[in-house]
């Protein structure tokens, strides 16, 4: 299966436009190297006829990307929380130092 067979359905698949553009460039590059007669990129895996395999691949890719995005967002949130805690603790340590320094210098 080549890019030409995927292009008509690209607008109906989420993220398909990007994939379509990417595959278009790849095909063009291969064509310029004289490899245009060969299938550009196998889609859908072996033994899966028609567009079904391609849809499944795209869906799986999208699910992977989504789960990675969720993971990254969680990670970012975790880092933000940690940063907030470190800043607050750092402020406490600084103020504590100032307080004790002040207490000693006012020692009577």
């Amino acid at each position: 299966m080549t890019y030409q067979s995927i292009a008509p359905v690209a607008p109906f698949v989420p993220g398909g436009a990007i994939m379509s553009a990417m595959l278009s460039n790849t095909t063009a590059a291969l064509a310029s190297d004289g490899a245009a007669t060969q299938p550009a990129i196998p889609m859908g895996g072996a033994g899966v006829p028609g567009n079904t395999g391609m849809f499944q691949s795209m869906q799986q890719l999208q699910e992977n990307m989504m789960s990675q995005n969720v993971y990254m967002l969680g990670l970012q949130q975790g880092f933000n929380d940690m940063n907030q805690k470190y800043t607050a603790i750092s402020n406490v340590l600084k103020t504590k130092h100032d307080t004790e320094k002040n207490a000693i210098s006012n020692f009577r």
Partner: protein
Amino acid sequence: MPSATSDNELIHGLIDIPRQEAIVLLEAGYFLMQLGKNKEAKDIFSGAIALFPHSDVPCIALGHLYLREGKPDLAVKEQQRALQRVPTSATAQAHLGEALLFQKKIPEGVEALHKAIKMDPHGLTAKLAQELLRVNDLHVFDAD
């Protein structure tokens, strides 16, 4: 720059000591604590507690050392002793709040910190208490 009068001022404790020397003694204790020489620092602070029975400052310092060593129970006792000596000491009150938070006695710690803010609303102690309350709001103390 301290005046000549304050340089010559005496601290009346177990024995009379020039104020500047007493300050240097306490600063030496903090310095040793920062260097990780906790035993030496403890000796200095314990000596200062005996030497200046009227003062809250050495008790606060020793409480700080205990907290640093991960002994909040002993830190609470020292801060309570500081408050017995000087009941109006906002610094001791704030440090007591901190030690209570480390003991995971969160409501008592928060109450002690609010009390410290009331005792010295515009001073450094209030700032310390507010910062500690902010840290507590981030659930740092109640985490396992």
